[in-house]
């Protein structure tokens, strides 16, 4: 049986604890009395995934069965979550491909000829053919690529349809093919509580015109946190858009949830509790540490990129978006929720090499900020793990390194925008339009494999709530110059960082560390 997540009190028996450090690892001895939030062990995966999918499609939530929705001569569009999920990438067969095969088999039986499969990547970079093939599986890829299996293009004005405005004035504009379909089947992987629901179609298949209504500083400041949809302005906005969209086009949502089994084989020590490490785990750690200390960054990225997670599937639900998502969230909570009593003065976290926007890529300094102050900080329900005005200490080298193909606008954002100001609101009002409409970035987004010109702004907004909330942010082991450009401070060791934090929170702070990944969602009481 999977043991649930828990909060460890560090005592003299506690061994040094493992923290991610970008493409490396550190063992850190936390001060006695610190607390450490550990994620739950992986829930058992479903044995017969195909039966589970088939059951979900034939017994959907609040909807007719899929087979009843498929008619000869109809236009069917299957959209799916892009390369940003899951993290790390999963071992094949990818759950998206498995679900799609069931949908396509039903479509073939019903005599549906007009099928398009679209990677719902919104303003993310396009997926390469190899990445598409990995996600959808060889059979689907061979049958549909390239004519009928392709990436969504949010800048292809000819192929976008304006649906209308919500009662709050939010414009809804999505992929034309999807909008004109008789049925959109959306296949998702709901890795964290932020994903899925109405965030799938109205965001994944949308354009900048539509996305800007919720991907902005104001919304992010009122999403506390965006990992808790009922308390998230981001989700309130997407729900309004989704409901409007549902009036125009039939959407059949299929959501899947995975367990916490993020690291398999020799790397499974990464998800074990340190005091339970076997000799083999110790040896694996030492070997990994030697490798990460010595190997050049690009080799490490290559190796880590090939470490696919042996996730188990914990649930598949299909039907009407809202009803499905309720069940999905319950599954996510079942795996990730950890109750934590009270807030700390200092939050400590090790930032890993995995992130949604650097798959097969480089986690550049802006993505590091998004990972730490965006995702990690926001992994809460209720209250943040750290008190207002507290300090967040993160382990990451924060190297000044960018992927020139994937993140061209990030380079300029770092060199030009951040050199000017790090204030999210100032950045938003002064620079966003310029980057979002820059023809060169748009060209690279459409024809190369670049993230949209506006994407680094969103990463910065993602961290806006934490920047506003925290008293200080310190990167242990970070590159001094780079971190300073980001507007934060660096320390060489955790001890130094705690000394620096004392300026803000006093000499004997309450410290809470989070051990993530595997993923956890703190329910702070």
């Amino acid at each position, binding site marked *: 049986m999977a043991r649930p997540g*828990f*909060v*460890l*009190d*560090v*005592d003299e*028996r*506690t*061994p*040094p604890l493992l923290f991610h450090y970008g493409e490396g690892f550190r*063992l850190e*001895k936390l001060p006695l009395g610190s607390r450490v939030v550990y994620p739950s062990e992986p829930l058992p995966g479903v044995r017969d995934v195909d039966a589970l999918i088939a059951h979900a499609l034939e017994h959907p939530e609040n909807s007719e069965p899929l087979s009843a929705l498929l008619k000869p001569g109809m236009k069917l569009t299957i959209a799916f979550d892009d390369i940003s999920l899951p993290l790390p990438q999963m071992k094949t067969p990818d759950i998206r491909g498995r679900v799609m095969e069931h949908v396509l088999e039903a479509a073939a039986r019903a005599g549906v000829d007009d099928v398009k499969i679209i990677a719902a990547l919104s303003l993310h970079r396009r997926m390469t053919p190899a990445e598409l093939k990995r996600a959808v599986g060889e059979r689907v890829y061979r049958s549909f690529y390239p004519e009928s299996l392709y990436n969504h293009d949010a800048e292809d004005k000819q192929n976008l349809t304006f649906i209308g405005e919500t009662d709050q004035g939010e414009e809804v504009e999505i992929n034309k093919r999807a909008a004109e379909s008789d049925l959109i089947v959306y296949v998702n992987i709901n890795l964290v509580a932020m994903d899925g629901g109405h965030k799938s179609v109205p965001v994944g298949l949308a354009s900048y015109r539509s996305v800007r209504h919720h991907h902005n500083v104001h919304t992010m400041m009122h999403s506390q946190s965006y990992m808790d949809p009922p308390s998230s302005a981001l989700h309130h906005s997407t729900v309004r858009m989704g409901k409007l969209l549902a009036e125009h086009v039939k959407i059949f949502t299929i959501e899947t949830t995975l367990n916490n089994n993020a690291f398999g084989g020799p790397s499974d020590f990464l998800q074990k*509790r340190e*005091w*339970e*490490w076997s*000799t083999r785990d*110790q040896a694996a*750690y*030492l070997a990994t*540490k*030697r490798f990460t*200390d010595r190997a050049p960054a690009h080799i490490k990225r290559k190796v880590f990129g090939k470490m696919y997670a042996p996730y188990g599937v914990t649930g598949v639900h299909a039907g009407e978006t809202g009803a499905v998502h309720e069940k999905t969230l319950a599954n996510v909570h079942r795996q990730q929720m950890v109750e934590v009593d009270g807030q700390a003065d200092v939050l400590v976290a090790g930032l890993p090499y995995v992130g949604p926007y650097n798959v097969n890529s480089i986690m550049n300094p802006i993505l590091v900020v998004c990972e730490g102050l965006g995702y990690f900080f926001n992994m809460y329900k209720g209250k943040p793990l750290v008190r207002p005005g507290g300090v967040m200490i993160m382990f990451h080298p924060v190297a000044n390194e960018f992927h020139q193909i994937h993140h061209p606008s990030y380079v300029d954002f770092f060199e030009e925008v951040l050199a000017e100001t790090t204030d999210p609101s100032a950045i938003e009002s002064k620079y966003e339009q310029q980057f979002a409409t820059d023809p060169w970035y748009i060209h690279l987004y459409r024809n190369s494999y670049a993230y949209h010109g506006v994407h680094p702004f969103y990463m910065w907004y993602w961290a806006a709530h934490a920047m506003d909330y925290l008293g200080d942010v310190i990167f242990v082991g970070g590159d001094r110059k780079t971190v300073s450009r980001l507007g934060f401070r660096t320390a060489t060791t955790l001890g130094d960082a705690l000394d620096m934090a004392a300026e803000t929170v006093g000499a004997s702070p309450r410290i809470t560390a989070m051990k993530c990944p595997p993923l956890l969602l703190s329910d702070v009481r």
Partner: protein
Amino acid sequence: MKKRGSLLADAREVARGWRWTHRPLVPRSVELPDTEPHDFPTAWARTSVGRAARAALQAYALKPLIEFETRPRVEGLDVLGGLRAPVIFIANHSSHLDAPLVLTSLPPAWRERTATGAAADYFFDVWWRAAATALVFNAFPVERSGGKGRATHLAREMLADGWNLLVFPEGTRSKDGWVREFRMGAARLAVEHAVPVVPVALRGTYQAMPRGASWPAKGRKPVTVRFGRPLWPRAHESAADFNQRMRAGLAITLNEDRSTWWDAIRNGDSDAASGPDVARWRRVWEASAPMPERRRAFPTR
């Protein structure tokens, strides 16, 4: 200090707070109270190979080591003359020296047939310590935390097979050098199996290697091992009553070593073994007083 990042430094970091064991040290906040104690197998130590290895280790390593580090004096071995295995040896316990001292004081024929009760939570918690204890002392695990069942069962089996047992009925080493209350295990075994109990008084081990020391103190401290008169459980005697007699028997043997046999049985003060009822430091002070040097009629130097 090795610089951070070297293999040695990494290995040290990993090894910090970690034990070479199947049973790691678990932080208190996540320790489960009902952790099943691990059953370390000890039967292999009583096979002919194990016995031969132990006889050699005890005779050629343990005994010379004890005699090199302390000055043992053994008295009262004649009581064994009228006995046949199995018997239960009970001794007062204040030092890690106690078990090796008693074992190496026994004549080889008795030593070879004697097994030692050792705390399961201390000696049997890690495989290497358990293996070494089982081999050298022919040890069997004793549950100190009230766990009955397995360990007692093993002791019964061994008595039935004719093994003598060496047991420290206090359950743990004395903190102040004086004899604590006895636990019931040894008395119960003796009553059930109707085997005699031989009290063994150990003096000087508290001074030679007290609790907390990892090696005997310098200067070859004198220690004495005195075997007392065997005690037989009487017909229908309860374990509790026999336990009292055992304790009195050990107290007399201790007194006998301090004074004379005659004085000891005449005074019959069994409470003397518990030490004076004074402040703790005074008890420790008295218990740790150097043993009087043995009077020599013809000093050799």
